[in-house]
């Protein structure tokens, strides 16, 4: 577990970032600069960045981040804009004009109407569209929620339900479908509603914890101090406690809110983002970011606070000596342009992984540098665990895992350490098989790419199985499948179903007979994998076949010296695979045989075969026969295996080869092997120069093979037999 080991890890493919940072933003950003813009708005329901100008609104789709995306425009009427959101079917634009009025704009018909509230008693804090069956839009007012249905025919909102509550401010994210309403003097009493397609869930009221600085002062919680975070399909609420300098986390369940512990903070301004289920806590003042993986129970950060890196920023001046390497800047102060400032005051963080520089009208997307993260951590099993959970860059995570494992073995780290690492990979694979995400990832056509709206739905379905307990999330997943993209979803489940069946079928097949089909399907998978190497894997899981192809086999080629270490590692792999009930392919068994034979450990090899550690298959049997050239006992094991597998034809041929042609004949008769030419047996008997045996073989065929007596073969060997006999008597 030394530092040295981690630094010597191979950097796979990409430029090494030397652990300077673990998260980065990639140049160029999306430029959303339009003339006369009236500010930038983010519609997280549709993942749209909106920039209204005089009488039109520009919108950029940012669901799939592409800096070159051009805006689409819609014309709207002029006027003040407090908030603007497209309906989830993007047919209607809703614009909050004031504390009392929301205007609706039908994009097709250009018809418009306004919804107003009672000005004296209430004011509108905000609104959002939902995919609930009961209502289309929720309006948050100071005195509660209005759940309304949008009626395009009558050009009005129909009030479905109201939830009466005092609201100081609110927080909502579309990915969680959760609205949190703050009330009370300190704004630390919260009511929550999850408005999903299935139903509307009211969370129990809960209070946030706030430390007091002095006896009499009571800090007031502000909206920017609360984040709703969705990771691994679980919903957390994070609350900044400025006095205690802590970030409290709460996990939200359907019927409970449970405090989870606190994270330290080092800045008065804190923001949270989620990239690929990793929580990024931006310490804005300190200009550093801390990464947390909330999957495990530990609240320990993945690594130390490090600055955010701006990648690929072209330096206009100077530093020609660095030009070979891509110039990178991790420090805003040095950068030559205002664009390159990280954690500027004008940064607005958007859910889940975007940041908008409102001053410069730039949109950046956060990314994780998996390489840097894995290089900076010496606890290999935990880093593998972390990488296995990555879905966004699953392929890169997978390559890193393979590389790390390879290195581990090549460095001959202690077997228990490697065993632990391998166990992580195997159980992750087993899990992905159970949830079908492994095979799903191999399908060329991915629902993920079918549209911006779907990405949310897809990710959540994958995770639904992973965290069955999180009831809240389960319902969101259902929401997506039912309303948003029902067509895609059904197609998707179909796929899932099929692939699962195929797998089960394959493994069952293999139980009894060594079916080549199943094997070839595996081979197909792995080749498929290499074809779409950089593509849309959703899981970093590593199959036994890949373990063989990308870890054990290359390691075997590279490793020098005693192969028993590698045998020990493979045994640990078998151990893990056996515990997880994962089938191991014959190629690995073949490798074990080769390794043992290299050391001439024939006795152990015998034990392995007898105890069925090497599961019987034709490949294994053939390797035993091959290795048995130097050791007859091993050869016999191979022969016995062929016989036990019912490969009668091969068995008989090999018996004849070994000179046991009479036994072979008896066996052939018993198991009705009739595909072998009589001449094979006759020739063997002839070579042994035993006339009695030759006569016996000849007799066998004349008795049991109809028409044999009239063949040229019969005549030939009959003549030979006569000659043998006459020479003996003479």
């Amino acid at each position, binding site marked *: 577990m030394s530092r040295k080991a981690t630094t010597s890890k191979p950097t796979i493919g990409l430029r090494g970032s030397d652990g300077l940072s673990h998260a980065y933003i990639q140049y160029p950003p999306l430029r959303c600069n339009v003339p006369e813009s009236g500010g930038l708005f983010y519609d997280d329901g549709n993942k749209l960045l909106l920039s209204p100008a005089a009488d039109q609104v520009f919108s950029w789709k940012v669901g799939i981040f592409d800096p070159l995306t051009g805006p689409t425009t819609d014309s709207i009427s002029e006027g003040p804009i407090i908030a603007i959101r497209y309906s989830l079917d993007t047919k209607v634009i809703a614009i909050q004009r004031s504390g009392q009025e929301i205007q609706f704009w039908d994009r097709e018909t250009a018809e418009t109407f306004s919804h107003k509230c009672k000005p004296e008693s209430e004011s509108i804090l905000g609104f959002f569209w939902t995919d609930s069956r009961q209502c289309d839009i929720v309006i948050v007012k100071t005195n509660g929620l209005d759940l309304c249905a949008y009626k395009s025919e009558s050009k009005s909102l129909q009030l479905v339900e109201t939830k009466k509550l005092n609201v100081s401010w609110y927080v909502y994210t579309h990915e969680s479908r959760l609205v949190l309403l703050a009330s009370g003097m300190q704004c630390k009493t919260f009511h929550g509603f999850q408005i999903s397609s299935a139903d509307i869930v009211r969370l129990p009221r809960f209070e946030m914890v706030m430390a007091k600085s002095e006896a009499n002062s009571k800090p007031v919680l502000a909206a920017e101090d609360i984040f709703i975070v969705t990771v691994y399909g679980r919903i957390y609420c994070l609350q900044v406690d400025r006095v205690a300098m802590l970030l409290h986390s709460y996990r939200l369940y359907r019927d409970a809110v449970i405090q989870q512990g606190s994270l330290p903070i080092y800045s008065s301004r804190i923001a949270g983002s989620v990239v690929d289920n990793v929580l990024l806590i931006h310490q804005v003042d300190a200009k550093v970011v801390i990464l947390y993986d909330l999957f495990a129970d530990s609240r320990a950060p993945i690594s130390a606070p490090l600055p955010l890196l701006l990648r690929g920023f072209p330096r206009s001046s100077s530093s020609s000596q660095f030009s070979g390497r891509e110039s990178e800047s991790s420090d805003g102060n040095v950068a030559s342009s205002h664009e390159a400032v990280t954690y500027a005051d004008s940064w607005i963080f958007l859910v889940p992984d975007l940041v908008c520089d409102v001053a410069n009208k730039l949109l950046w997307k956060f990314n994780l540098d998996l390489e840097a993260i894995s290089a900076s951590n010496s606890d290999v099993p935990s880093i593998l665990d972390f990488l296995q959970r990555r879905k966004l860059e699953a392929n890169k995570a997978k390559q890193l895992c393979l590389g790390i494992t390879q290195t581990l073995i090549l460095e001959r780290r202690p077997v228990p350490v490697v065993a632990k690492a391998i166990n992580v990979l195997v159980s992750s694979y087993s899990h992905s098989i159970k949830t079908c995400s492994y095979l799903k990832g191999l399908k060329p056509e991915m629902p993920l790419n079918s549209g911006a709206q779907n990405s949310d739905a897809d990710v959540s379905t994958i995770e639904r199985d992973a965290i069955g307990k999180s009831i809240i999330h389960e319902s969101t997943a259902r929401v997506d499948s039912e309303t948003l993209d029902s067509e895609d979803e059904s197609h998707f489940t179909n796929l899932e179903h099929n692939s699962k069946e195929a797998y089960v079928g394959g493994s069952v097949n293999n139980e009894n007979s060594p079916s080549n089909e199943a094997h070839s399907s595996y081979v197909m998978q792995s080749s498929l994998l290499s074809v779409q190497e950089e593509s849309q894997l959703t899981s970093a899981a590593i199959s036994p076949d890949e373990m063989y192809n990308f870890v054990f086999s290359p390691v075997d080629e590279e490793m020098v010296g005693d192969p028993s270490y590698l045998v020990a590692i493979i045994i640990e792999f078998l151990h893990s695979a056996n515990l997880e009930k994962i089938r191991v392919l014959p190629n690995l068994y073949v490798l074990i045989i080769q390794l043992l034979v290299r050391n001439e450990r024939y006795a152990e090899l015998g034990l392995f075969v007898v105890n069925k550690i090497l599961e019987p298959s034709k490949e294994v049997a053939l390797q035993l026969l091959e290795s048995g050239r130097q050791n007859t006992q091993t050869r016999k094991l191979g022969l016995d295996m062929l016989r036990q597998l019912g490969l009668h034809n091969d068995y008989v041929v090999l018996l004849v080869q070994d*000179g046991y042609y009479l036994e072979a004949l008896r066996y052939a008769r018993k198991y009705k092997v009739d595909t072998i030419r009589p001449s094979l047996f006759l020739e063997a008997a002839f070579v042994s120069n035993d006339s009695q045996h030759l006569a016996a073989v000849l007799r066998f065929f004349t008795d049991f093979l109809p028409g044999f007596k009239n063949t040229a073969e019969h005549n030939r060997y009959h003549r030979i037999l006569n000659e043998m006999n006459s020479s003996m008597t003479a």
Partner: protein
Amino acid sequence: MGLSSNSSNESIQLCIFDLRRGQHEGQELDKILFFFPSGLPFSKQLAVIGLSEGLITFTRIFSPQAACDSIEAERHSHVFHEPEPDIWMVLVVEKSNDSEPIWRDDALRKVLKEIHSLFVMFHGPVRAMLEKEPGGGLVRRHLYSFIMDYLRDFLVGKKFLLPSFRDCLKERGTVQMLTITREAAIEVQSLVRVLESSAANTPCYSLILFQDLLVSTTLSPDDTINLFTYAVLRLTPRALSSGTSSWSYLRKGNIASNVVTETNVAPPSSMPESFYGSSDISPGEDNNYHVVRPLQSDKWSKGKDGYLVTDLWGAEVGTWVFATPTVLLQQTGERMYLCAYQHRSLTLMLLIPISSIPNGEQGVSAVKQQVLENASLKILKIEEKLSKGWGGENAYHVGGYRYLLVDGDRNVSRASPATKVTTLTKESLLAMNKLRQEVELEKNRAKLDEHSCEKDLEVCIRAKNNAWVISRVTRGKELYMVLEKANETLLYASDAVEKFSNRYCDGTFSLD
């Protein structure tokens, strides 16, 4: 019992002699390396050896490679074994008055083989010891104490019970394996790797036993047999407990029994001093000179840390630490430390090359500590798993069958439990004994043949008591079985074999 009539101590004679020694008149005594009973006058000892030598010289004329196997005299059988060139072991047993032979040459020869290979494992080859000390005193002292300790296991009351027809469904010189599931096997292998990696970078070997059955070995087949045999004799839980239970009895025997008194290291007083020790070793020095007696019983016990300890190898000079036993591996010719660890029914034997541990006992105990740290959890788990899966003493009993299954390639055998074999009648056992003798004759003949092919063999005998006595030999694997109270047709008998073969031998014996 076959020996019951007149099996006094003189009913057996066992001698070891070296044909390269004492070839001049007057020096005949020099060739005797060991003789039992040692009280026999030299003239009688020389008579036995002279006869043997004469026959060996005579038969070598015809068969230089494999001289005399045995002599069948009217009242005695002589079984020969040449473990090292020109070193001969001869066992003489008395014949009974029965018409059927009660002895089987091969079974007796296996005893000789076992004595020799165990001796070599602990003390090295006889020839090497002779070269080290040409006077012969050293080797005589070692052989004497070693074989007397060995023979004591055959002693029941005052009689020696050598393997007779009653043991025809047993095979000495093979190991008995525990059948385990794949899952358990993988875990065992995982443990084996941990054990062997415990001693830094040197290749170690290991042997794991559950009860008296072998679970795993990384040694060569010959070394496996030797260590397995020793473990079953002295180390396994049964061996340890039988030692303690009969402890008081043997102590008594030490005073009472004539034979046991002889097992003292000191040679019998009737011997000329120059015979068992060269004259330059005075009795005082003799006491200081420590002859390691690995087979001495009741000397092993389980220590607090789970390791088995013994004072047989003495203590390290100036300390109270018992010296770790050492053994010589046949395959590599390397001397190894033998560390045995026991947890309930599980016995682990770890063999560490002496050359790899420069600082002696200190180094060994460091390795032992390392093993405990790395493996104790695994050991616990495996013991539990194997105990759960074990069917007990009669686990390998097959109802209706009394069988012996020998895999000659792997030196593995499995047989009906001894308690079940004893239910067979004497007739059945005698018939089986005879059948085995015949089969071995046939096998030996085939071995002499130039052909490398292993012949199949099938014999089915209806014995006097209407039992079926069956033998099948197929490509290195042998199956012997006795079916009493069985149907009288041959078809029935062969069906029974077929069924057994398919069920318990993966169809090895039902090929046609």
